[in-house]
């Protein structure tokens, strides 16, 4: 019996039991659809995050002290280090970065406060992470030099404090560890927490951008959390990172004291985490595929029993054991492959729907389609082998007597 005849005969049998075939397929459809949906959303999110980072430019380095137990005071990063790094020929921009939590901003009603955090940066920050300014300007060199009490806030905070957005020139009061301090608003940006807030469903603390020198004066410190560096040639970023590390080690007379990560490393790390999450959820979805496979096997066993007499007739007419085995195996594989194809389509549609709600463009790769088709045929073969063998081994006389 050639493969074409087997296919025709299998399709005819499946079509004669449409409802049963469909319900059996449904298990596979749901399994495949959920896997496709999750992987496409996962791949879409990764692409979205990568492109978000791409906007910041690929040539960005983060320098941080390792801060191990035996870290010494002389290891801390300072503003002098910023000046030192500027001297490297590959460096385009450098900014110190200091973050302080626990700030409370007085609202319209002075008894109410909104929590926030202070970020100290210099005038080059705006070239490295371009702010979405609505009004006014960002921190410039003179603000830093004069240690001005100026601040850049976002529209949400402006709205909360003043009831409007264009508040350049106004004064806000921030309660810090050393009491209330007043700052002049020089710029208003778009809501910087929009993405996070839509996911978390809660209001996030507001960021207050200030000149680094101002912040250091307030907090009485002279060390930094990070130094951000942008390089001229992203191709040479790894070499530049090594050289900057050496410069810092020479200046601080230490070894192995700093992490220098490129943005690419961070993207890779986030992608890795997302990959794990996607893999885990896909695994859970894969369990439903497994359950679907059991459904196929179950129905194939029922079919074999129902068609015992047919098997006897076919054997009496000269069907070999392998012909019978092939017939049932092909039926199982057709069920799972068609189920798989419908599942891919359903998963793609479901992914697009969820993607629309999450504002992510789902990505279905050819690879994932090939893998799912492969997996569903494999499920069919595995689910079909046992029933098909059972059918093939039936004794023709017993089978012919079966009522």
């Amino acid at each position, binding site marked *: *019996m*050639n493969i074409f*005849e087997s296919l025709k005969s299998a399709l*005819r*049998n499946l079509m*004669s039991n449409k409802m049963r075939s469909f319900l059996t397929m449904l298990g596979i459809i749901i399994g495949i659809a959920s896997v496709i949906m999750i992987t496409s959303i996962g791949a879409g999110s990764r692409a979205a995050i990568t492109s978000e980072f791409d906007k910041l430019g690929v040539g960005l380095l983060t320098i941080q002290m390792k801060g191990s137990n035996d870290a010494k005071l002389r290891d801390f990063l300072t503003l002098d280090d910023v000046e030192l790094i500027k001297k490297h020929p590959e460096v385009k921009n450098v900014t110190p970065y200091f973050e302080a939590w626990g700030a409370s901003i007085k609202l319209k009603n002075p008894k109410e406060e909104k929590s926030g955090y202070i970020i100290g940066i210099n005038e080059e920050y705006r070239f490295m992470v371009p702010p979405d300014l609505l009004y006014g300007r960002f921190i410039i060199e003179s603000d830093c030099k004069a240690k001005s009490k100026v601040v850049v806030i976002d529209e949400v905070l402006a709205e909360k404090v003043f009831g409007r957005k264009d508040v350049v020139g106004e004064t806000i009061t921030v309660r810090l560890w050393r009491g209330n301090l007043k700052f002049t608003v020089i710029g208003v940006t778009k809501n910087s927490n929009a993405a996070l807030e839509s996911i978390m469903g809660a209001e996030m603390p507001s960021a207050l951008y200030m000149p680094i020198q101002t912040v250091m004066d307030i907090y009485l410190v002279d060390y930094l959390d990070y130094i951000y560096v942008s390089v001229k040639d992203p191709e040479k970023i790894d070499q530049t990172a090594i050289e900057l590390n050496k410069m810092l080690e020479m200046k601080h007379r230490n070894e192995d004291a700093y992490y220098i990560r490129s943005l690419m490393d961070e993207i890779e790390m986030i992608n890795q985490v997302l990959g794990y999450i996607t893999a885990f959820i896909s695994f859970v979805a894969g369990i439903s595929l497994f359950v679907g496979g059991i459904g196929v096997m179950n129905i194939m066993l029922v079919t074999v029993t129902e068609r015992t*007499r*047919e098997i*006897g*007739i*076919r*054997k*009496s*007419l*000269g*069907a*070999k*054991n*392998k*012909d019978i085995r092939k017939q049932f195996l092909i039926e199982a594989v057709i069920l799972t492959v068609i189920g798989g194809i419908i599942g891919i389509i359903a998963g793609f549609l479901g992914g697009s729907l969820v993607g629309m709600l999450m504002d992510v463009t789902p990505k279905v790769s050819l690879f994932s389609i090939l893998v799912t088709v492969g997996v569903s045929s494999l499920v069919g073969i595995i689910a079909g082998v046992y029933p098909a063998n059972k059918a093939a081994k039936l004794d*023709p*006389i017993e089978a*012919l007597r079966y009522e």
Partner: protein
Amino acid sequence: MIKVESLNKIYENGRIQVAALKNINLTVSQGEFVAIMGASGSGKSTLMNILGCLDRANSGKYFLEQVDVSSLNDDELAKIRNLKIGFVFQAFNLLPKLTALENVELPMIYAGAKHKERREKALAALDKVGLSDRVLHLPNELSGGQKQRVAIARALVNSPSILLADEPTGNLDSKSSEEIMGIFQKLNDEGVTIVMVTHEPEIAHHTKRIVTFKDGEIITDKFVDNPIRVGGDAL
């Protein structure tokens, strides 16, 4: 054509052993038309199953066209069933979802024949049993006699050496039985060797030789003096 020597078949049912065939010797030559008779449990169906290569004897030899069938494996037996043997059953055993034509084509599918050849031969076989106007009907649209004629066409379509019929008229009224026996006689006239199990003496007398079984042994084996010819013309 068919030669069995010292054939024994024992069924084991728990601790009880039942000898279904005891030391059977039988020869059927080319062109014969043999009826096998006997009460149920006499061993006639067991012999048919062995002759039809659906079952194996416990001991003894079975030669089909000089080939020692008792030494063949499952696949080789399937091939013999496909090409050398045509089965006709009491219950017709047509596949209910296939048309008459497709049922007749089935043995040729397993023989690996091409589509066009299958169609031509199946139509010819259906024509031979007088069903050329029913080829696209499903079995449940056919009468008992018509179903059995489809089964005969299916049995003949690979031009087997021998036609084995197990109570072919058992489910038919007397008129249809008569028709079926007429077809068998016509086929036999054309040289087809037929072995048929029946328990009806009237039907058995349409054949040329009657072998009677009792308790797994052959008790009589004689030629029919004056077979009943369907259509009245006695031989």
